[in-house]
């Protein structure tokens, strides 16, 4: 009986549900709210279900839904709209375009903020804009997109590291790189996956395709919540989340080629020119030792077998043997879907980029799953897991330039080969013994054949996040973020027994296994409440971070074969390993106040304690205050079209920077080395009990102006004063130390940043938008220890002087060639020219001759769409900086490098009695004048305007099955619009040092994107 009652009541219940959920058919059209044009392929989903349809080519949709339901209409590029059906059979929905205008929500420190209420300085870039420029590394994708941000790559090898500088160079000796925060978890900047064999970007491990957005936090108001590590700015990376509604599957495939962007830099002398240069250099040597001119001729040298083919008929362009058109392939699959309680994003990416140098490549296989789940009405949980496998194969690079130009360097190989030797013999076999110096192998052997040398690395990284949100009341909730970043990197160095480097070891294999583990946990209590026109949001929290590094090293030598390269094949040569650990405890809080969306005030505070500093100065406080006034909400501007939005803002606050070393403050004796095989201990660090943070005081003022709801103009001025610089304070070596780390000196970075986003044309089928940014910046060393100049860098190339910029070049001033003597001339004292000229480099005085930091940088992106076509073009520019051309020191050497390096073709314009109006001095082997040494000859302007990226695409939406199909071609770094120094690539590292490593590359790709 009981059962029957239960059954009946269940039946009624069900009926009741059915009655209340009576379905109707709804028809409608989705349109763009600003242009009125119809939107195909918009997703229309019944809220809380997976039931949905997609609008057709005309933007029409038909859906059968409960009459009291809510439709969720969404489309990429537009803000999602929710519409109550309320029994209506026809529902036209217009979507507001997603724009970077003031009503956006942006990701900020420990949360999100509406752009209108944000009082700091930050720029958010969408993930697809990043992935469009670089499939390799998200930092490289920021080039030209954000004002105040400069990006450079170490070199042109795939997988090499990029350097980012936000608002100038903020430190002399500590890091100048920003802090990276992925999904709320700080990625420890000290984490490294390299032992220095070659540059590798640790951010490569994160697939750019998985990125939803990147926010660059520039001023104190934006960044001070990250306190002691925020002085170089902060980059917040948010990964993609699943979207509820219809499940979307997307596949992107790309294929293309990469090549050296500027091959002019490697235009070497051909055979006959080379032979003449050798003979003239050698003859110059004889002349310098008292013999008459003409003692040595090309014929003499030919007879003595100096050249592989003395006939002058062979001219091998070795640059084309070392460099190649490299293949790039990229496959990305992702899935996004869910309902109102659970959303899932999953992505899998495979990228394989060959390097432009024979035998080098970079491969990444990465997967990510992000799950957001609402457990109940007071607990939300997010799980994010990334796993990424990276392989990079190739050769050593020379990030340490003091090492000269290594025999195993690819660029060195170009110049060390005899241009009169062919790369292959008559039978097409690789010819060895082609190098001019006799020690370097044919590049086809050295780089392609693994029995010679290789430098390979495998990096595996796992990033795990768990976020829990406890909602106590509608205005009070607690979040706990737990992050675990685990990275393992294996580094393999092999010098085969017959290789140029391995001969003296009879084969050498070094392997390192580096591990880095960072645990971060933050617990933050959030408060968010409005009282009439007053709204207050506040947070307070605690954060703990524990960074652990370790490595194991093993080395064997004396290999019986060059065919097998496993460690065990050789005899034990060495082993080592050493862990280190750094811990940080932090307390943080902030308050934001908003009155009537008109007046905004914010303040933040963070207290950090770090194990990297001594007990005396371990804890420090960082804070910021900021405010904004939205004038457009005032009566006098309320209806102004010109001022559709206008906000002025200002901020002031402090940030910090930590020493790089985990134990720099300690006075230590080193163990672990030996005098022969007897243990040795010796003083290894001078220590400094009072070592403290580097502190920067940041002032920022600016306005955000939206005109006619079409043009957005942001202008900011910043002044960042960094004091207590972490500085290797020089000491006399008689004390046992050449320097010790101290907080000395002050540095100022100031600048003006302008960003313009404009929708120029929005009419029917055609749209044209322009994003432009401009930065003027100035870096000034305000004070140094005792006010004294400090020379720094390789060979004292740079000078730190009060009032000057960082990376100021300090070199002798080269005056050109004396047309009578043929010798190069320098000022004896550039600041007192009355002292006259000299031919001897050692007598030449130095002066400030340029700087590596530019005055003006910026970029411009134009995006045009017409019907289904889209075209975008990114141009970047830079003015006011110079580079130091280290490679030319070797490759136009006034005869010095005879016997070791071929020269650049332009170097053939050297002085002879028949060419007295020459660009370069007389060539003399063993040159006693050394006019080839570093001087203004090697300082060149990097001013340039460059096309960074062009993409042309065609998107075809479909009614069923496939949602859309997009085909595109893109070019990165395709060409230079203008360059002050056309024969050198101006993309050099931040310090302006043109290394002998592989320079910037360009690539051309074709791709397809399919959505289901």
């Amino acid at each position: 009986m009981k059962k029957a009652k239960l059954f009946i009541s269940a039946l009624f219940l069900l009926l009741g549900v059915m009655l209340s959920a009576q379905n109707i058919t709804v028809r409608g059209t989705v349109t763009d709210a600003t242009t009125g044009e119809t939107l195909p392929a918009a997703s229309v989903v019944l809220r809380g279900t997976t039931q949905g349809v997609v609008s057709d080519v005309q933007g029409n949709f038909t859906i059968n839904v409960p009459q009291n339901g809510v439709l969720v209409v969404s489309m990429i590029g537009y803000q999602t709209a929710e519409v109550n059906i309320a029994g209506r059979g026809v529902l036209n929905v217009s979507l507001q375009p997603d724009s970077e205008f003031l009503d956006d929500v942006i990701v900020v420190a420990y949360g999100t903020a509406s752009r209108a209420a944000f009082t700091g300085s930050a720029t958010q870039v969408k993930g697809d804009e990043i992935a469009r420029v670089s499939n390799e590394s998200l930092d490289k994708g920021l080039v030209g997109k954000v004002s105040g941000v400069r990006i450079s790559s170490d070199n042109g090898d795939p997988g090499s590291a990029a350097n980012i500088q936000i608002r100038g160079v903020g430190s002399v000796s500590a890091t100048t790189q920003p802090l990276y925060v992925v999904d709320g978890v700080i990625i420890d900047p000290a984490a490294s996956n390299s032992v220095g064999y070659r540059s590798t970007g640790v951010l490569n491990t994160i697939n750019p395709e998985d990125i939803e957005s990147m926010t660059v936090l520039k001023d104190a108001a934006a960044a001070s919540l990250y306190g002691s590590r925020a002085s170089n700015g902060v980059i917040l990376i948010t990964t993609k989340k699943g979207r509820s509604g219809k499940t979307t599957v997307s596949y992107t495939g790309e294929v293309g080629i990469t090549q050296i962007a500027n091959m002019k830099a490697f235009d070497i002398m051909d055979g006959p020119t080379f032979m003449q240069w050798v003979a003239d250099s050698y003859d110059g040597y004889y002349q310098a030792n008292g013999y008459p001119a003409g003692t040595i001729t090309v014929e003499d040298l030919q007879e003595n077998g100096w050249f592989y083919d003395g006939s002058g008929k062979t001219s091998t362009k070795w640059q084309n043997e070392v460099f190649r058109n490299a293949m790039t392939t990229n496959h990305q699959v992702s899935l996004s879907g869910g309902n109102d309680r659970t959303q899932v994003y999953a992505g899998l990416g495979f990228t394989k980029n060959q390097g432009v140098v024979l035998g080098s490549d970079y491969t990444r296989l990465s997967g990510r799953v992000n799950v957001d789940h609402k457990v109940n009405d007071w607990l939300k949980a997010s799980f994010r897991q990334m796993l990424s496998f990276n392989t990079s194969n190739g050769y050593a690079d020379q990030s340490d330039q003091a090492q000269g130009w290594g025999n195993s360097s690819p660029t060195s190989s170009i110049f060390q080969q005899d241009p009169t030797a062919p790369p292959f013999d008559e039978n097409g076999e690789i010819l060895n013994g082609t190098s001019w110096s006799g020690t370097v192998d044919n590049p086809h052997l050295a780089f392609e054949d693994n029995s010679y040398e290789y430098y390979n690395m495998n990096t595996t990284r796992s990033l795990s996040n768990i976020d829990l949100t406890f909602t106590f009341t509608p205005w009070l909730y607690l979040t706990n973020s737990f992050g675990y970043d685990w990275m393992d990197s294996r580094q393999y160095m092999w010098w085969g027994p017959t290789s140029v480097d391995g001969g003296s070891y009879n084969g050498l294999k070094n392997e390192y296994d580096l591990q880095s583990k960072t645990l971060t946990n933050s617990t933050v209590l959030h408060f968010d409440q409005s009282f009439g026109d007053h709204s207050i949001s506040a947070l307070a929290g605690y954060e703990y971070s524990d960074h652990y590094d370790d490595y194991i090293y093993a080395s064997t030598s004396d290999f019986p074969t060059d065919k097998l390269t496993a460690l065990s094949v050789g005899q034990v040569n060495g082993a080592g390993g050493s862990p280190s650990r750094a811990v940080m405890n932090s307390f943080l809080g902030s308050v934001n106040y908003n009155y009537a969306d008109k007046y905004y005030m914010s303040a933040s505070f963070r207290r950090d304690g770090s194990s990297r500093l001594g007990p005396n100065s371990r804890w420090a406080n960082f804070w910021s205050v900021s405010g904004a006034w939205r004038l457009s909400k005032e009566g006098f501007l309320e209806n102004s079209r010109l001022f559709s939005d206008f906000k002025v803002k200002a901020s002031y606050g402090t940030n910090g920077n930590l020493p790089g070393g985990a134990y720099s403050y300690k006075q230590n004796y080193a163990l672990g080395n030996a005098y022969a095989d007897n243990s040795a201990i010796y003083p290894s660090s001078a220590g400094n009990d009072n070592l403290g943070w580097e502190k920067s005081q940041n002032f920022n003022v600016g306005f955000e102006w939206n005109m006619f709801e079409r043009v957005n103009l942001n202008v900011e001025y910043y002044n960042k004063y960094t004091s207590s610089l972490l500085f290797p304070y020089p000491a006399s070596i008689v004390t046992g130390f050449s320097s010790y780390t101290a907080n000395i000196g002050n540095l100022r970075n100031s600048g003006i940043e302008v960003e313009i986003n404009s929708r120029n044309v929005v009419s029917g089928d055609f749209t044209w938008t322009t994003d432009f940014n401009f930065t003027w910046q100035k870096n000034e060393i305000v004070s140094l220890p005792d006010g004294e100049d400090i020379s720094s860098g390789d060979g004292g190339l740079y000078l730190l002087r009060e009032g000057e910029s960082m990376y100021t070049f300090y070199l002798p001033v080269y005056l050109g060639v004396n047309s009578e003597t043929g010798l190069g001339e320098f000022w004896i004292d550039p600041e007192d020219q009355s002292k006259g000229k000299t031919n001897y480099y050692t007598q030449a005085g130095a002066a400030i001759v340029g700087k590596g930091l530019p005055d003006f940088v910026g970029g411009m992106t134009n995006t045009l769409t017409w019907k289904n076509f889209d075209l975008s073009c990114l141009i970047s520019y830079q003015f006011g900086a110079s580079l130091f051309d280290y490679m030319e020191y070797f490759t136009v050497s006034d005869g010095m490098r005879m016997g070791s390096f071929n020269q650049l073709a332009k170097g053939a314009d050297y002085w002879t009695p028949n060419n007295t109006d020459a660009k370069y001095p007389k060539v003399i082997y063993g040159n006693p004048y050394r006019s080839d040494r570093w001087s203004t000859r090697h300082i060149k302007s990097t001013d340039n305007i460059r096309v960074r990226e062009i993409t042309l695409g065609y998107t075809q939406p479909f009614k069923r099955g496939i949602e859309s199909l997009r085909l595109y071609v893109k070019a990165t770094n395709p060409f230079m619009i203008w360059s002050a120094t056309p024969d050198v690539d101006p993309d050099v590292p931040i310090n302006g040092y043109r290394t002998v490593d592989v320079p910037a590359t360009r690539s051309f790709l074709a791709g397809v994107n399919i959505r289901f």
Partner: protein
Amino acid sequence: MKKIFYAIFVLAALSACQGLDQEPSTSISAETAIETVTDLSYAVNGAYYQATGRGQMSLVAELAIYADELGPDSNVENGSGQYAQKIHERSITPLDSWGAYAPLYRGIAAINKALQKAEALEDQEGAAPYLAELVGMRGLFHFHLATFFAPIPTTGSANTMGIVLSTEVYPLDYKAPRATLDDTYKQIVADLTTYINSGYNKEKMNGHLNYWAALAIRARAYLYWGKYAEALADATKVINESPYKLYTLDNYVSVWSGDEGDEIILQYAQDDNYNAQRYAPGYYMHPDGYTEYLVTEEFYDFMTADPNDVRSKLVGYRDGKGPAGPYPLKYPGKTGSSVPLYSHSVKVVRLAEMYLIAAEATLKTSTAADAVGYLNTLRKNRIKDYADAATTDIDDILNERRKELFAEGQIAFDFWRNCKTIKSGLGTYGPDHYQNVLPIPKDEIDICGEDVLKQNPGY
């Protein structure tokens, strides 16, 4: 309530934190570094480790053949522009000499710190010999610095600057001028004498300055200082009383491929793991290496003129990747090493030199007939069927030095201190040519100020 419970649970999970006091894994605090006699013995090794450097221009690298590169008998063939070539071509500038200067001062500072820290250990058993050796080493390292960065006193150079003396622990802002040349040698001799007078360490010690090595180095220092009677006394004491024996006709050729030999009084110990790698002397004098130290054809002929002289076998034509030519064979590749060209210990003082010092000092204080006796003893162990010579002169002694000590870092010093001009492939250089002395490193002058730390003239 449940929410709060969960939130508290999460917060509790946080309490398992590491503290802010973290210690490095490969170094220890200076306060606790030297607490036992064993620690002290490691600190002695540490001072050698620091002073020998292993980097470019260090004692176990180019400096080991510095005087050979500047001497009359060396040649660079198809060099790689490394420092041996730069020394040979006299193109070292104040930017290049840091590697020669810094390690030695680091070593001396390590000595002074060890002496200071070991004050507490003075009464402990076994500490005294280490403390004595440290003082001797301080003299030795000052002597090395003086030979490279200051003129030899007997050249009569107008440059009478010695080096900066380092005899105690200095604060980090310490900046000192150079002592006079005379005070420099006084300090060198004083430290060596303190060690010798202690009477410790009379047994053979590989890689360490023992009693006899201190005597031998003091003999050399006296010779450079022009104090010939004192030089003679020290040299003859080593000859007569030390446990070292001259190499013989039978073993002379073979000893060079190893690190052991009856004559070796002091060498800087190197092994497969700790060595100067490509800056090691062996790599410079091998056709597979940098080929920046070959001998001249003239020297090859000079050495091989008498086939009865076993030393003729220590120069030879070698083939390899680099140019064929006559190479010195004194660092031929260490037997049994996985890195034979890198891992030779660097020879500092051999017994043969004591005979040469004795001969020269006797010649200068007494008669040629007395002097030649030392040469005859040496030559008997070098030349088959040698008949005693009756007399000698300074050129004869210098030629004997060329034969006996080439590739051991002495020849140019020997010429200069006897005021002889050196003619090399690149030109003719007098005994007080400014480039016979290395420039004080620019960085060091920048730090101390030109008015405090004076550069050697000419640079």
